[in-house]
């Protein structure tokens, strides 16, 4: 296509050149030499255009339009064939410094899906000029920041309530009654839970380098911090009522809590193994560790264990707000587990026989 265009163009130029030359010679003899030399200098190649081979370095030009106003923001040119969306975003960032790459959302058409970073320009281009629509994804923060903020908050908030600061509880009541051991146990377990989360975020999880809009950080923190304040208020209240079935209830649920915590930890460690993350992951296989045997029954045992821990915590403290928190977390995690389960079923059909997503045999 390019070859034909170029040869046509150069043919036209040559015709015009000859016409121009003859006209000027006829008209003005005095300035013959001058005009002739001018024409020669301005004309195209005199010899026949050599056959243009299919250029291996075809460059694309990317036109970036604003998705809402349809106005052009900038043109990114000299984009090679093997370039990806990520490269385009980097070049765009150089041209417009305030849109750093993770903040940029590029779509092929208005309202279409955002193009992933690894997609090559060649696969989406229909001509040498590609039009992409730009949407500002908003201030971005890294996932690690989000997790650290979400987990540090509850840890500190619960301790604040545990220490019974004077603003929250009536001081006379607080000092009068002796606290039931389950209150101390609950605080200890709660702290273990969140310290474990923090350590895993820092040392175990291979969080993708991706970032997420600031809105997610705010929402996540509001949810975790808000609920932790609510449950901490009731558990550490001077008028807290211990569980109805006494020590038996506390002991059984405490043991269950510890089992689920250990299970969650081992599953997370297993999932962070290079074999099980990334695009070439294979389905995790249960090994000698009994906690990993959950993989035989469900595809997302980390969520199963986490729901288990929270249910144990609810039963141990016998507090309705904790139950509500557990319910909401379970709903959220079930949705995530279902999504992941579908991906697994597509990818690893042979391993997924008779497995459920999150609760063995049920969900």
């Amino acid at each position, binding site marked *: 296509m390019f070859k034909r265009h170029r040869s046509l163009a150069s043919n036209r130029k040559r015709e015009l050149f000859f016409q121009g030359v003859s006209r000027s010679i006829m008209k003005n003899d005095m300035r013959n030499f001058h005009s002739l030399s001018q024409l020669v200098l301005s004309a195209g190649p005199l010899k026949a255009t050599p056959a243009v081979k299919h250029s291996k370095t075809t460059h694309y030009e990317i036109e970036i339009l604003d998705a809402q106003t349809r106005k052009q923001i900038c043109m990114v040119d000299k984009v090679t064939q093997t370039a990806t969306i990520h490269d385009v975003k980097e070049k765009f960032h150089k041209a417009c410094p305030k849109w750093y790459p993770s903040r940029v959302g590029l779509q092929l058409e208005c309202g279409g899906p955002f193009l992933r970073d690894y997609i090559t320009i060649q696969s989406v281009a229909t001509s040498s000029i590609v039009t992409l629509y730009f949407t500002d994804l908003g201030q971005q923060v890294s996932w690690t920041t989000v997790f650290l903020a979400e987990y540090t908050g509850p840890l500190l908030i619960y301790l604040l309530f545990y220490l019974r600061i004077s603003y929250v509880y009536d001081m006379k009541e607080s000092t009068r009654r002796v606290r039931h051991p389950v209150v101390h146990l609950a605080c200890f377990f709660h702290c273990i839970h969140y310290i474990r989360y923090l350590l895993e975020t820092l040392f175990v999880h291979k969080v993708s380098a991706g970032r997420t809009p600031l809105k997610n950080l705010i929402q996540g923190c509001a949810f975790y911090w808000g609920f932790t304040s609510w449950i901490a208020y*009731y558990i550490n209240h001077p008028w807290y*009522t211990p569980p109805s079935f006494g020590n038996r209830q506390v002991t059984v649920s405490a043991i269950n809590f510890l089992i689920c915590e250990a299970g969650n930890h081992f599953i997370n460690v297993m999932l962070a193994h290079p074999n099980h993350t990334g695009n070439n992951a294979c389905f995790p296989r249960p090994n000698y560790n009994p906690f990993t045997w959950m993989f035989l029954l469900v595809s997302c045992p980390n969520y199963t264990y986490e729901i288990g821990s929270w249910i144990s915590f609810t039963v141990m403290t016998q507090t309705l*707000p904790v139950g509500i928190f557990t319910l909401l977390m379970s709903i959220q995690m079930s949705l995530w587990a279902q999504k992941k389960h579908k991906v697994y079923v597509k990818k690893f059909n042979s391993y997924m026989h008779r497995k459920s997503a999150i609760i063995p045999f049920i969900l």
Partner: protein
Amino acid sequence: MAAAVTAAPKGNGGSRGQVGAGEADCTGTKGPGPLATAYLVIYNVVMTAGWLVIAVGLVRAYLAEGSYHSLYYSIEKPLKFFQTGALLEILHCAVGIVPSSVVLTSFQVMSRVFLIWAVTHSVKEVQSEDSVLLFVIAWTITEIICYFFYTFSLLNHLPYLIKWARYTLFIVLYPMGVSGELLTIYSALPFVRQAGLYSISLPNKYNFSFDYHAFLILVMISCIPVFPQLYFHMIHQRRKILSHTEEHKKFE
């Protein structure tokens, strides 16, 4: 608040309510099938009739008693019935025969139902207040126009007058409804506190407490950021849709 929330997104064709003939839907979704359309038309006609009954009841009671106090008692039953019947709209959105967001619609309808049952019905002393009449009148006029609008849109025969009324009368009705609702909740507060209505206190077996009085105050406070946003959104919608129609008229 409930009136506002209902009136505003109703004005936005995409949120609660069926997309009418005159409103462009940029995603170009197909409308509901013929059976669903028939059911929706019947539903909207029934709701229009219901709210007309309430309006007529109000007028008759006013003429009979000569004053506008305590008119709530004359239309209590139809009001409860038809406003609660609006819960079906959540079902419509969930099933998909109406192209609106389930979350938004349920928020609107639940706020109305909350006001009717959890405030006006539960706190008997509030029923003779004038603020109740304020929001009842606002809701009645709004709902009649809205359900007319939906009926005609579904039948693809929307008179400009109805469209104009829907997008213009809210300017007065919306603040009227919101003030009526807020005043009602405010006047219910002392009675709620006195009776300890719907409240649970510590200590109890499940370590839970709920203070309905504080909850109502929270509800009132949450109206403050919501009301201006919705109001100006509606005005913006009005400008967009009514000028869009005028342009169409020019070209015809």
